[in-house]
C-alpha cells in the first residue's frame, strides 16, 4: 500500500490517463482503473434536479447508477457490435480542470474536478458540462477509482438523447 501523501499533480496525471483511455475507447484499460471492492459506484445524476448534492440513487432515479457488476456488464456491452446506439462510435474529448483534493487519508482520497466532455456523432457535437466528485484508493498498483459521480449541469439530454458514452 502506498501511503505517501499525494498532491494535485499526482491526481491530474491519473485523471488525464483516465480521460485518454475513454477517448480511445479502450474499455479494458479504463475498467482496470477501478477498485475491485464492493463499494464501487459510477453515478450520473438526473438532469431534472437543480440541487443534487444530497441525492442518492437508492431513493432517486438517476441517469446511471452502476455498481461494480453493472459497470463490468456495461463494458462488455460497449464492446459488442450489437451495441446499436454506438454504431458508429461517438468520438469524445474529456476535458478536466479545477482539480481539488478535498480530503486525504493513508488509503483514500476525496477529490472533485470540473469536466467538459465533447461528443461528436452523426455530424453533431454536444458538450456535457459537469462537476465530478470522486473517491480514489491508493493501491500497490497505483490509484484506483472507488466512486465517480458525475453531477451534470444539463437540464435535459438534448440533441443526442441517449447517454451511451462514459462521462
Amino acid at each position: 500500500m502506498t501511503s505517501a501523501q499525494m498532491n494535485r499533480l499526482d491526481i491530474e496525471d491519473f485523471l488525464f490517463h483516465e480521460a485518454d483511455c475513454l477517448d480511445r475507447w479502450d474499455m479494458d484499460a479504463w475498467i482496470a482503473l477501478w477498485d475491485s471492492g464492493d463499494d464501487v459506484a459510477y453515478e450520473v445524476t438526473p438532469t431534472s434536479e437543480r440541487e443534487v448534492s444530497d441525492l442518492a440513487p437508492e431513493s432517486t432515479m438517476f441517469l446511471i447508477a452502476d455498481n461494480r457488476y453493472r459497470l463490468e456488464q456495461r463494458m462488455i456491452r460497449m464492446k459488442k457490435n450489437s451495441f446499436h446506439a454506438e454504431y458508429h462510435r461517438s468520438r469524445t474529448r474529456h476535458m478536466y480542470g479545477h482539480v481539488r483534493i478535498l480530503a486525504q487519508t493513508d488509503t483514500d482520497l476525496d477529490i472533485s474536478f470540473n469536466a467538459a466532455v465533447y461528443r461528436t456523432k452523426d455530424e453533431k457535437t454536444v458538450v456535457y458540462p459537469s462537476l465530478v466528485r470522486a473517491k480514489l484508493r491508493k493501491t500497490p498498483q497505483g490509484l484506483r477509482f472507488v466512486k465517480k459521480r458525475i453531477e451534470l449541469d444539463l437540464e435535459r439530454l438534448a440533441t443526442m438523447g441517449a447517454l451511451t458514452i462514459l462521462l
Partner: protein
Amino acid sequence: MVKDMTITGHYQSRYLDVNPEKSSFLVHRDAYRCPEVFRLEKEKVLYKTWIIIGHESEIANPGDYIARTVIDKDLLLNRDRNGVVRAFFNSCRHRGPSVCREKSGNRKTFVCPYHGWVYKDDGTLMTSGTPESDATFPEGFFDGHISLMPVPRLESCAGFYFVNFDPDAPGLLDFLEDAADRLQLIDDQATTGMEVIRGVHEYEINANYKLLCENSYDGSHLGPVHQSYIEYMMDVLKGESLNSVGLAKSFGGGHASFEIWVRAGRAVAQWIPSMGEEVRAEVEAKKKEVYERLGEERGKLVCESHRNMVIFPNSIINDQQSVLVRSIIPVAQNKMLVRAWTLGPKEESPALREIRLTNMLAFLGPGGFATPDDVAMLEMAQRGYEATDIEWNDFSKGYTPDEKTLKGGVSDVNNELQMRAYWLQWDRMMSA
C-alpha cells in the same frame, strides 16, 4: 369500414391502406414525416384526446402544485387550499409571463413577476399588487371574475390526472375504455397509494413521437435490437429461464398493450434470486397481500406479468420492474421530448426501493442497456422516411380478416395488432 371492431372490405384513406382479404395493413409514411400532417394532427388528435399531466401523489396536500408542459402548452396543476384540484394555463392574464417559475412546490398564491398581479390558488385574480395600483383599474376588476385560464378539461383515473383541450371531448373513462382497468392495475399495487419517485429522465429523440409508441409494445424487435440486454439478463438470472409467453391486446380507442409472462423480477411482487435474499421476505409478503386483496387471478396479473401499454396518443406506461411513465411532448414531425418518471408504493422499504430503481435503470432510460438502442432504431427509421421516396410502412404481421383490431383483439405479442389498433384510431380522428 369498421364493424364490430373489425375492418371489413378494402379500406383506403390518405394514411391507411388496409385490405383484410389479403391480410395487408399499410400506413403511409407522411404520417411521420410531413410537417402539414403534424400541424393537422395537433388540431385533430393531440388537442382532442386526454393526455396525462401528472399523478395525485405530486399534489397530495393543499397548496401543492406542479408546472409542466403538455403537448406544447405550459400548464399548472395544483390542489387549492380547499382540496380542489385545478389545471390552468401558466400565463398571466395581464401581459403573459408565467405566474410560477418553479417546477413544483407549495403556495397559496401565484404572483406574476412582471407587474405583480396576484392570483389565489383557485385561479382568481386578487390584486395588481397594492391598493393604490388596484384603485387605478376599472370598477369591479378584482371581484373574482378574472382568473388564470383554466384548462378546458381535467379528470383523473387510478391516481393519474389527465387534461384535454377540447371542451366537447367525451369523458376520460369513456375515452380510456378497457385501458382504465389496466391503469387500475398499477394503483392496485399499493395499499397506501403509489407515489412518484424523485428524478425524471428528460431526453430528446429525433423521430416522430408515434415511433416511440410503436416501439414500446413491439414484441418482435426485442431479439434483434436488445440482444446485448438479453445477454446481460441471462448473466443476471444465472441459469433461470428467460422464456416468456406474451399477448398483445387492444382495449378500444387506440389503446393497447403487450403482456409478457417472464420471471424477470418485479418489486411488486415477483422475487427472483438476483434481487437478493435481504428483500425476499418483503417481496413474498407483498405478493401474498396483493393476492389476498385482489384474488388469485387479478393478483397474478399485478405481480407476475410485465406490461407495456400505450394510452393513445402519446402516453406510454411500462409496468415492469418498476412503473415507468413516458409522457411524450411531440416537438415536430421529426422530434420528440420524452419525460419519463417512475412510481412505487408509498409503503415500500428503502431496500426494495433501491432494487426497483437499479433494476429498472439497467433496462430503461437513456443511460440503460436497452432504451439507447431503441432510440438509435427510431432515429434511423425517421431518416428512412425523410431521405427516401418509399411511401408505405407495413403492419401486416399476424393480421387476419377476422381480427378485432380496435377493441377486444388478442394476438401473439410478436404480431402487430397493438400498432394496428393505434393507427386505426389515429386514422379515424385524422380522416374525420
